Every structure is written in C-alpha cells, then in structure tokens.
C-alpha cells in the first residue's frame, strides 16, 4: 500500500514538473494557462509562430469563448501566415478558478489582456509583434486595454471587427436598424409574422438611454433579425460541434460562462461604459470591419470609432453579405492577413 502511495505521489510530482512546451515553427499548437488572482485563463497558440507575428483574438460575450474562432478558414488562411492566439477570458470557455463575481470588472479584463501579451513575450521572445483582433464585446475589452497607460505601444495594429466600444450607442443603432429594416419588411410583406413583434417592441421602447434589460432584449432581437434577413452568405461551419468533438471544449463550463449570474451582473455594469471620447489616445494603425447586415453590432459603431480614434492610419471594410459571424469567412480572413502584412 505504501509503495502504491509513493508511486502515486511520484506521478503527480512528475506531472507537475513537466518541461515547458514552446513551439517555434509553422504548425504550433501550444496550450497553456495564465493565472491572475483566482482565475486561470486558457491560452491556445496555433499556427506560424516562426513568423514572430501573433494575432491575439479578444472574443465576444461576455462569456463566449475563443473556441468559436477556431474555424477551418482561420487555420488555412491566417494560421499559415502568423500565429493566432485564442484565449478564453475569465468566466468563459475553458477558463477555470474560484473567482467571485466581484472580480468581473471590465478593467480586469483589460489587465488580463495585458498579462496575456506579457506572457506571450515571455514564452516566444521579446521580438514578437502583436496585432489585437477584438470582436463584439471584445471591443470593450480591447478599448479598455488600448486607452490605459502606454499599453498600445505593445501592439502593432488593432483589428476592430464587428465590435462595440459604447453599449449605449450600440443599443441605439440596433434599435434604429431593427425598426428601419423591420418596417421595410412589413411593407413588402416579407416574413411579416417574424418582424412584427420586433417592430412592435421597438415602437414601444423609443430611443433614449436604454436600461440593461432593454439592452439585452434589443441584442436578442438583433440575433433574431439575423436569422430571417435575406442576403447573408451561407456558412457551413459548425463551430460548436467541432469545438465539442474535436477541440475538447468543456461544454458545461462554456454554457455556464454564458448564462450565470456573475455574467449577468457584469453585463449590467457595462451599460454605461463608453470609450468614444478616450479613443483619441490611440494612435496605432486600425482596421475596422463590419458586416452590413449586422444587427448586433451595427456598422455605425465603426463610424463612431473612426470619428474618435487618434490614429491617422485607418482602414474600413464593409462586408456586404455578412452579419455578426464572419459569414464571408474567406474575405474576412484575407483582409486580416493583408492588414497585418501591410503593418509589420
């Protein structure tokens, strides 16, 4: 019995002392964790680490996951050219810990992003070049990071993709777009039964400062509208299925990250945070991408972002047949690669 216990103890000691696995090559696939206070965040680095160029994805949500970005297109187009960093924010995806709800503050998310970049430098060298791709809620996280101290000097370029930096503006734009497009469809009798409740809600809740409950409902109606709108490019990727069965995504952790009470409380706290007037501090090159049919983060957010950003090197692309999910996958990914290669 004693021998078995010693063997078991030796196993765990050996397990805990494994050598660092750092891949510098064309097909890296390194998973490691970043621990800050009581939260441990999963970081996955895939692709061409030999390029020394790292594109860090700041995913949406709050409480979504970087697993949602691990698509065949990302592998075939982007990971060939650079390393792509998929990291799960606290309370999302494969992140773990005992963190209490009080630690879910936007500035902590920004500090996590700073720590991710520091850790990547530690592992892959101080000479690596970073590009930050922020998507949806990730725009808030990245805005918090970029406008703090001199953080932006760590980054060569910022890809602001279907993202938000101002929730109140986001809600007003979603409201306006739902009402406008909804009325057009009702007039033409296209999916009238599905548009009717959306339009009715918008009429009952006129523009103004929306509270967090209204904000949540507008977001849900935005997703509904994207299911019935015509003209979207069809996308056959089943990212969730692939994540569960090919990428070992912890499904219960992912689902709870999206729905738990801490997440809802955090969502409420975001309602009055806006970065429009602090963006003038940011002077690094930016690429702004929006789907024309995006009701969740309408393209007007990109216009406001560009109107306030301090950078003189700005680029904007509107994808005509996309909404909020990179529907024109190849076009999005090629635009990312082009922007990065133009700003090395």
């Amino acid at each position, binding site marked *: 019995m004693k021998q078995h216990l010693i063997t078991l103890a030796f196993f765990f000691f050996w397990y805990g002392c494994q050598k660092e696995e750092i891949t510098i090559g064309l097909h890296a696939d390194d*998973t490691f*964790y970043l621990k800050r206070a009581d*939260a441990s965040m999963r970081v996955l680095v895939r692709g061409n680490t030999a390029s020394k160029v790292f594109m860090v994805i700041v995913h949406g949500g709050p409480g979504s996951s970087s697993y949602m970005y691990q698509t065949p297109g990302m592998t075939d187009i982007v990971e060939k050219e650079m390393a792509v960093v998929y990291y799960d924010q606290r309370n999302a995806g494969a992140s*773990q810990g005992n963190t209490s709800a009080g630690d879910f503050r936007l500035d902590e998310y920004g500090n996590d992003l700073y720590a991710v970049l520091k850790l990547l430098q*530690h592992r892959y060298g101080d000479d690596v070049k970073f590009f930050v791709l922020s998507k949806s809620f990730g725009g808030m996280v990245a805005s918090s990071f970029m406008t703090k101290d001199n953080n932006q000097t760590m980054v060569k370029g910022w890809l602001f993709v279907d993202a938000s930096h101002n929730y109140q503006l986001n809600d007003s734009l979603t409201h306006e777009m739902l009402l406008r497009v909804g009325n057009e469809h009702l007039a033409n009798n296209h999916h009238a039964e599905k548009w009717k409740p959306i339009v009715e809600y918008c009429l009952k809740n006129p523009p103004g400062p929306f509270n967090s409950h209204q904000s949540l409902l507008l977001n849900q109606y935005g997703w509904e509208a994207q299911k019935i709108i015509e003209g979207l490019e069809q996308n056959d990727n089943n990212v969730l299925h692939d994540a569960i*069965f090919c990428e070992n995504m912890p499904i219960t952790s992912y689902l*709870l*990250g999206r729905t*738990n009470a801490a997440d809802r409380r955090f969502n409420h706290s975001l309602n009055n945070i806006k970065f429009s007037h602090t963006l003038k501090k940011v002077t690094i090159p930016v690429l702004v991408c929006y789907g024309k049919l995006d009701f969740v983060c309408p393209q007007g957010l990109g216009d406001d972002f560009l109107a306030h950003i301090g950078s003189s090197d700005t680029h904007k692309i509107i994808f005509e047949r996309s909404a909020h999910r990179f529907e024109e996958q190849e076009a999005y990914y090629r635009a990312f690669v082009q922007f990065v290669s133009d700003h090395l």
Partner: protein
Amino acid sequence: MFIGMKRIAFIFFAHFWAVSLFAQGEPVATTMVSSNLKIAYNGSIVYPGLRCGLEFPIRQTDLKAILKNNAWKNVSKKRYATLELGYYHHPSFHDNVFLLLGWQTRKQRPKGFFTEFASALGYSRTFLGGETYLVDNNTGNIGRVHQAGYNYAVLALGGGLGYAFRHKSALYLRTSLLTMFPSINIIYPRPTVDLGVVWQPKHFLTTRLKVVSKLKTRKP
C-alpha cells in the same frame, strides 16, 4: 473563504445526520458480512477515467409482497455507506481527482437485476491541462506554477442499473453528476458514466449488517 468552508462543513454534517436517521429502523436479525470492492471505467462522457471504491453494507430489507394476481414479489433493498476515489482526464482542460463519501441504495430483484441510487459528498482537486504561469502586472514578474489547479467541494448524485451474478459479483452502469463548487461559474457540473464491476471478497472488512424482513399483504 472561511464562510465558504463553514457552509461546506454544515452540508457534510447535515448529510451524515440525515443518513444516520436510517438507523432508526427495527432490525430483525444481524449478520456479519464482507464489504464490497468496486472498480469502474469512469468516463466523463467522452473523456476517460477510473473510479474505484468500497461499499460497506449497512442494512438490508427483504420485502415480500403479494400482488393482485396472488403472485409473490420479492425485492431486496440494500443500503451501503461508500467511499470512492475517482479520476478523469480532459485534455487541455484539466485532470480531476476526487474522493467521495456517500450513501447508496440498491434494489435487487430475484433474477439478479438491480437499480441503484447514490449520493455523495467529497473533495476534488483539479490539475490544469497545460503549463500555468502566474503574471504580476505591477512588477512584470512571470513565474510558472507547478501542479496548478483548484480545490472544490463536490456533491455527486447518480443512478444506474446492473446485474448481480451468483458468485458475489455484479456488473453495473451508472450515470452521475459531479457538481463542484465554489467555481468561477459558481458551480461546475460534470456528468460522468461508470461501467464497472462490484465484488465481495471473503472476510474483507467485515461489518455488521442489519437484516429486516417485511411482509406486505393486501388489505382484507
């Protein structure tokens, strides 16, 4: 943290106090019996693992009832205190080792088929599925954390079915839900499936078993 530990201690106490109430029955006979050993493949659905443990028989109720068609129905209900050690491996997420102390009931039919229900409380230690680094944003210090992971209290509930063979062994299939807390998501639920064997070696951790016989007849 201290308040959290007090809550956990209270739940443990309440659980075992409730369990001890079962001992208030009226035994007809007592007999010395061996305890059971069990070992199972414990898959967290698709992620492999192992679970092994002990079942200490506490009480057996042999129920004989007469049915509407005048046939006799025999059912044996057994109650066990259980101790289990489990493990599963979820690549790139975590490895989890857990120790459970529980209560199990098993209802066995004459032909050998049985159903069971198990509840348990315990402790879980996870080991993160990758190298882990602690980053201090203020100082810029970065250090590796060895054996990084988390401690959780666990509440496990499960049910299953099986077949008991003549030679004091049985095969069983059980699904369980491990609920770990406190977690970043408040709780972290984890479904598992066990496929395993139970056997009763001779003179192994012999315990006193209370055997109660009950007869149920129809009202006149």
